[in-house]
């Protein structure tokens, strides 16, 4: 009843091409933003902010990055963790080299460094396709995480071989390091994520996004209609690694506070790939849903036995958690292989024709 386009006429090309053509969608987006900017910071404890909301936002950003590569361009990558690490270590180096510089600018700059590294490892993608490419990106993952231990210059010759985040302030308020409150960190992450999502949305809905999708659907056909394959694929690698790099930097600087090479190992790459697939390939909103689902589920599972007062050993919970996550992944793929984003679309469609079946 409420969710219906009846009576909304498009009278210009601009309104016809709008990303959210329905008024209700625009209102919905505004409500979501309002919740994210006002309700959540006010209503959530700093523990929940730190262990739930900030990681979900950070992983959403990384998921958008991988989605650009895998979902939009059709290139499977297992090197996400490595590229995130590049972002984090680059930011760390930049903050020590340029202590005066604004840390947000440095995080974005290190995204550019990650993009360069991503392009380097994307070079074989013209000749190598499909699962072969996935294995080739594993080379990036293992090489990069080897660098994070074996090149001491990267972590300033620390004995612990870990990077620790210095305190940096923005407008006089500390946003990184031990003194930053979860709320300020949440706001910084949220602003970066919203801005970069907006940018990604414009990218994928425009000419570049169309090029990526053409390459994904069939690269030879795309080449025949005049798309330069190599540039398009490398651009996808660059943008994707930029997003992953920024996500990695945010992860260390605004969430964890310290990191070592273990934080960016192969499991990280798999985790992000889960999020992409569960959320939905080639969908931005799916990236958020996937990240929230995969990150939120174990948190819920851990909390569930306590809430219901079932006494289970904590190790058992962890084992059960693995089993449940694995089973749920299979279950979701069986029920809806196109991910949560498709479920969301179906729900909207149902809502549009409600109360009639079609």
């Amino acid at each position, binding site marked *: 009843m409420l969710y219906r386009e009846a009576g909304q006429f498009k009278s210009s090309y601009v309104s016809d091409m709008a990303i959210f053509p329905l008024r209700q969608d625009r209102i919905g987006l505004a409500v979501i933003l309002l919740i994210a900017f006002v309700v959540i910071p006010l209503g959530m404890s700093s523990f929940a902010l730190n262990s739930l909301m900030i990681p979900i936002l950070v992983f959403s950003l990384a998921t958008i990055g991988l989605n650009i590569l895998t979902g939009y361009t059709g290139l499977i990558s297992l090197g996400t963790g490595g590229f995130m690490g590049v972002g984090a270590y680059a930011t760390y180096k930049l903050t020590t080299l340029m202590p005066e510089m604004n840390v947000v600018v440095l995080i974005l700059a290190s995204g550019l460094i990650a993009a360069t590294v991503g392009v380097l490892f994307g070079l074989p993608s013209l*000749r190598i396709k499909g699962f072969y490419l996935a*294995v080739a990106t*594993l080379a990036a993952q*293992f090489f990069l995480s080897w660098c994070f*231990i074996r090149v001491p210059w990267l972590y300033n010759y620390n004995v612990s071989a870990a990077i620790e985040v210095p305190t940096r302030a923005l407008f006089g308020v500390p946003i990184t390091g031990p003194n930053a409150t979860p709320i300020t960190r949440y706001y910084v992450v949220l602003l970066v994520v919203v801005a970069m999502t907006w940018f990604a949305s414009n990218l994928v809905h425009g000419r570049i996004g169309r090029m990526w999708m053409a390459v994904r659907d069939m690269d*030879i056909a795309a080449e*025949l209609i005049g798309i330069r394959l190599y540039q398009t694929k490398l651009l996808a690698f660059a943008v994707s690694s930029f997003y992953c790099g920024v996500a990695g930097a945010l992860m260390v600087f605004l969430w964890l506070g310290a990191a070592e090479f273990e934080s960016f190992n192969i499991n990280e790459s798999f985790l992000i790939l*889960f999020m992409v697939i569960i959320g939905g390939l080639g969908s931005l909103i799916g990236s958020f849903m996937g990240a929230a689902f995969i990150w939120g589920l174990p948190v819920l599972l851990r909390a569930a036995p306590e809430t219901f007062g079932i006494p289970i050993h904590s190790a058992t919970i962890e084992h*059960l958690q693995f089993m449940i996550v694995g089973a749920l*992944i299979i279950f979701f793929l069986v029920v809806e292989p196109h991910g949560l984003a498709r479920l969301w679309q179906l729900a909207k469609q149902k809502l549009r024709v409600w109360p009639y079946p079609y």
Partner: protein
Amino acid sequence: MDLLYQIFVNPFAQMAAAPDLLVQTLWEGLVSGVLYALIALGFVLIFKASGVFNFAQGIMVVFAALTLVGLHQKGVPAFVALFLTILVMLALAYAVERLVLKPLVNQPDIILFMATFGLTYFLIGLGQLMFGGEPKVMIANELYLPKGSFDIKMLGGFVALQKIDIAAAVIASIMVATLAIFFQRTRIGRALRAVADSHKAALSVGISLEQIWVVVWFTAGIVALATGIMWGARSQVEFSLQIIALKALPVLILGGFTSIPGAIVGGIIIGVGEKLGEFYWGPLIGSGIESWLAYVIALVFLLFRPQGLFGDRIIERI
């Protein structure tokens, strides 16, 4: 100049100076190559027959070995435990076919790939829940696996060949030969190859896809069990083996996803290349290059032959 010397001359000089060490390194490489090849074999079997890139092969190795050891620890005699483990792998194959493959027929490759990820997680959880997460010792004695080593005097030094490594190589060869005969000569083997060529055509001549998939996953399970026993006997049965199993991936792309001999040759190239690289060139850029050298070797090969050494030629049509 000095760097060039370090890279191009010095390692070879070392090799010439201590040939027994070279032979030892080659042997070590050969053995780890055989083990990689065994894991890769499991991948190839499943990929050939169902087009599924089975990420869970690594955890199947761990799971099989863990079941074997775990059952033995609970008091089951070794060979009964072995038999029971084979039954467990059969049950697993049935379950996978019923619950994962069948509902996902005709989905894109990446979805099936993802489903095997889910399977991996499930098996990790299940294995830890039933047998605990701590490393275990393989019951090598009870299974009458040889111990100790031959010391062969050659080239002015000693070369030590572990008996278990020799056993691994022999078992791997037997297994590959059996599989090759199975694929080429038997009725089921022919059906398998038909399914690999085209699901639809195979269905239309009356081959049961379900049955074939169970057979393939069961065979992969047996291969996993053999790998698990061998690998467990060389070190320990632990969950980190699953990450080592990722090493089978460069082996796969070297050999080609669809070729059984390719898996063996690829495994040996990767194993030997890795050990030689680590031993002679490793000190130059810091140790531990073993972790990524295999992937880089595979990457270089891929640039020249994108379908691997023995893979079917990739033909693309609009």
